[in-house]
């Protein structure tokens, strides 16, 4: 009898958890102002709508953004430390039918193909709710441009060398 009650309790708990996990829905869309072909240094923004589809409030909501590089041979998670200062959002409670809208700006640091996803969990939920993927490609931007660097790194020593030559010639002609 006790065993049956225990199994029944576990069953209720599992069904409650499943209901809690399914209660959240996360929608992710790139902002309309994003450049069509972004390059390093540009800023992109993504907009999420987190909705509580259940009939009970969701408490202790946490949502965070993740970025992975998907270039062939360079697949890796990206540390957002340098990309964005806005990496997570929290809400103490989300009532049934209510939504939490968030913008996620990020500065593009490195070229490559990337996939962004926003995940959400709640205090009592046992599963992760993830948004659809949003993919984007960052074009390479020359960081140290040779056409700007070369005139300086060659020109200045030549200029000083010319000054030395002029001083030397002037000294000889003066004596």
């Amino acid at each position, binding site marked *: 009898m006790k065993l049956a009650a225990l199994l029944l309790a576990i069953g209720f708990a599992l069904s409650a958890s499943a209901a809690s996990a399914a209660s959240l829905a996360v929608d992710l869309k790139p902002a309309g102002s994003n450049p069509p072909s972004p390059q390093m240094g540009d800023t992109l923004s993504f907009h999420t709508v987190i909705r509580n589809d259940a009939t009970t409030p969701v408490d202790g909501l946490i949502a965070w953004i993740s970025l992975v590089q998907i270039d062939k041979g360079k697949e890796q998670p990206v540390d957002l430390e340098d990309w964005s200062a806005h990496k997570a959002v929290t809400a103490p409670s989300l009532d049934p039918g209510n939504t939490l809208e968030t913008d996620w700006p990020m500065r593009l640091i490195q070229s490559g193909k990337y996939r962004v996803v926003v995940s959400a969990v709640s205090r009592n939920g046992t599963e992760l709710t993830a948004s659809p993927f949003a993919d984007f490609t960052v074009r390479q931007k020359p960081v140290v441009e040779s056409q*700007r660097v070369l005139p300086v790194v060659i020109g*200045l020593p030549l200029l*000083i060398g010319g000054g030395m030559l002029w*001083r030397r010639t002037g000294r000889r002609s003066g004596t």
Partner: protein
Amino acid sequence: MSATSLIARKEAGELLLSLRGLAWLMAVAVALSIFGLLLVSNTELSLLDNAQVVYDMVGIVTALGGLLALVVGLDAVAGERERGSLVPLLLTPASRDAILAGKLGGVAIAWGVMYALSLPYLWAVGSTGQNLWQGMLVLALLGSPVVLGFGFFGMALGARLASARTGLLTGLIALVLSVSPLLLGPSLRQSTIGGAFDAVNPFSAAVNAYDAVIIDSQTILAQWPHIAVAIIWLILALWLARSGFYRVVR
């Protein structure tokens, strides 16, 4: 024209218009050019690395400036003594403070020219990245007291030590020790001894401020503890130079 400005112009003129002085500037320009050329050949830099490039170059400029100021400061006293021109200078009606101020002015003008020389390089490697102008400003604010302090320190050594060679060796050892944060990794600097050294080392103060402003995008005003260390170093070195210069009798 006052004795101070006359001496400052003479010191700066010797450094900037003579062949010897131009060779100094050439050496600095070549060092910065080699660094720039190394960067051009690197195609794997990210935007963050661009800030790192500016940070590295600002650190190199400060180290080269410290070396320049140390040698110029040392030469202003010990070099003059070995060339036999210090005693005639001391016998002029100009006060020792005026002579000292003139020589300090020469060091300051030399640093000013070197700072100006570094600006095109900083612009060339850093104009597509972040915090370039802040980097230039923090180099002026933090680099100047650190570099000038080494100039005054060189003068103090030149005044106190009998030979210019001994003074140069001592000064170079002190300079290398001071610029060690550029060579040491962060883990070594975070140890107890490394942290204590960082707290009193003026060069560390400058480097830490560069890091905070250029890479971490912090405000320059927030760097006041580092600025305070650099100013204390400047005042201490000035006091050493002045007290040493007043002891010079030959």
